[in-house]
């Protein structure tokens, strides 16, 4: 593999082969098959084979296409967007906070906006945790507040101010029509407006969150699908420790 030009692999290195499927809003016919083929050609693919084309409803046709992309990606240039590396154990994280921060870290989490999907944020916060990995409530050095679901940014910010929260964990699972971005943005802006942003470690998460997206939104980090509580705990412990050192 040439890291500077990685291409999809079908059955031969660099063949660029991939699968796709899509619907066209047109009646099915041989012409629709050809339309599908031309469309994929326009996207820049080579060797376009329409493996399946058929009517799925009046005015709609469905296609399965195999084709080859000439594109390649330089993976050596991909920065470490990863936040989920080399987790500390629970004891290590607690120890780090105890030694450096020298007080409990106050964490508030919520599923914001009208989103009611609490399973994800619960997985991170609750004692039980996720996949056998304990949640933040179990750590000695965290004081956690799980506000639950459907919490407006206003409510969360008010809570953070009133309870002198150090870390905010905001979750978004529903992403339709960009509602996640809108809510995350609102929260960030509100914290700024209230002059709290500096003081608070602001993290977000959810199945569609990436660290890249989170940092672009001005968050300190973002955690995606499959996150383990210990990954979040480690990140918080390290950052809080850094901040404590900076403030000395």
């Amino acid at each position, binding site marked *: 593999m040439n890291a500077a030009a990685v291409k999809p692999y079908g059955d031969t290195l660099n063949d660029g082969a991939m699968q796709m499927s899509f619907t066209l809003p047109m009646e099915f016919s041989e012409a629709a098959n050809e339309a599908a083929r031309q469309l994929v050609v326009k996207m820049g693919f080579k060797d376009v084979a329409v493996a399946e084309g058929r009517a*799925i409803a009046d005015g709609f046709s469905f296609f399965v296409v195999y084709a080859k992309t000439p594109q390649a990606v330089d993976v050596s240039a991909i920065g470490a967007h990863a936040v989920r590396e080399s987790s500390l154990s629970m004891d290590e994280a607690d120890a780090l906070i105890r030694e450096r921060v020298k007080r409990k870290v106050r964490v508030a989490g919520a599923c914001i906006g009208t989103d*009611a999907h609490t399973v994800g944020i619960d997985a991170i916060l609750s004692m039980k945790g996720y996949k056998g990995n304990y949640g933040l409530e179990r750590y000695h050095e965290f004081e956690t507040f799980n506000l639950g679901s459907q919490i407006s940014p206003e409510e969360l910010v008010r809570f953070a101010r009133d309870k002198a929260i150090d870390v905010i964990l905001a979750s978004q699972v529903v992403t339709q029509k960009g509602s996640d971005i809108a809510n995350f943005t609102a929260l960030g802006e509100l914290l700024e407006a209230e002059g709290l942003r500096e003081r608070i470690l602001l993290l977000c998460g959810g199945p569609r969150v990436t660290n890249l997206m989170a940092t672009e939104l001005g968050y300190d980090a973002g955690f995606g699908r499959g996150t383990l509580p210990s990954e979040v705990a480690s990140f918080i412990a390290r950052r809080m420790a850094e901040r404590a050192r900076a403030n000395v």
Partner: protein
Amino acid sequence: MKLELDPGVIARCCELAGAIAEPVSDFIAAHSTVAVERSVLRLCGVDGVTSDDVPLPNAVLDRLPAALREGGVARAFGAGLAHTGLDSLGLAGAIARGELTFDLFSAVRETAARSAATAQVTRGLERVRAARETRAEALERLPQEPPPLLYVIVASGNIYEDRTAAVAAAQAGAQIIAVIRSTGQSLLDFVPFGATTEGFGGTYATQENFQIMRAALDEVSQRLGRYVMLTNYASGLCMPEIAVMAALERLDMLLNDSMYGILFRDINMKRTFVDQHFSRMLNAYSGIIINTGEDNYLTTADAVEQAPAVLASQFINEEFAHRAGMEDAQIGLGDAYEIDPDLTDGLLFQLAQAQLARQVFPKAPLKYMPPTKHMTGDIFKGHLIDAMFNLTSVTTRQQIHLCGMLTEAIHTPFLADRVLSLENARYVMNTARHLGDEIEFKRGGIVERRAQDVLRGAAALLESVAERGLMRAIEERTFADVSRSPDGGRGFEGVFERAPDYWNPVEEALQRQPVTA
């Protein structure tokens, strides 16, 4: 294909469900809610919004002094009708605009007020009855395909795209279409108005949206020669009002659970118990089949562990439905295929649970929910898990079959996702059509023992709930691992005690009507 289950244990569960519901029924009988009263207004013909978009039923009720409210809005509103000679819409508009106030009608005689209100309610219920008859006639003329009835959701947020999606799904074999609500609607203490095109994760439930979908489905039903059913969601702060709208617009099913709002939306339990009862009386009358929400227990906690809680909840939901006058054939008890797909012999456990429900509630049209929790971005694996679900459903003869989507973990369904999902169900259910007739489970085998364990577990759970009372049991995290206090949660302020002279002509009419199959 029958599992050996102890009929004594089943009978005991029914008895316990009765004992659990009894004190709650007493509470219900002594209370009303703002949503119940707004429903009465809606049945009187109050609909529309004020110039600042407040729904008229809310605007009218908000102007009703608390003292009068305790007697029921019907009397006060009836007095207004009698006093002014206006029709319901005219009167409601005038009240909403502040042109008239309720104190103006205080002199109206009780009988005049009652008869004015009764006339309106009768007209409203007449429309409901007509819708029911239209449905019966349509089902006769355009018979559905045999169950499992394939049920899919549309949820683009835009009612017009939803309509396109629903028609396409019907052509691809769907027999039931549910329009999923926008996130957060269930927490609104009013029902939005008009056709809507902007929802998140779903489309607002409004009466006009109901109409748009019903018309489109009637049209495609005609074309396909089979009646396609329409479903929406009742549970939430407006449970009774949505029941009215659904009854008027001839929806065929409604999501309606006696505890869902409490457990999963933190809606006050007293509010929910009163609302569910009134809405179910209406459902009974309108011939709507309810879908309960036991599947939700399985999305938040482990499906193997939660199985007894699911069954216990089914008994409770059934009991409350019976108490509201619903027939077995209207009680779509919820169940779901949510066991970890990577558990060895998971399919055997699923078969046990599905067959157990089938045998315990032989006449209820169970609503069988697909795998959701364990679905991931791997659409290929997801499609297979759905196939095993489809197989379990046809083998255990489920009736209302909510089709799983291969993109469950990714987005609300695309048009093609729904088609692939329907094709999955149709393929599997056809190739395995009579498998359930062909096989017997081994006596004392994994499947049978599992079913017996779950049944015993449910009985034990119900015993403990009966002992403590339902409200305390909920407070003590008996269901779905959440605790709710009797006076906490949303919408509690909308619950009030009925005055001794409380009058509700809708309730009276519904209690009088014998339910016709």
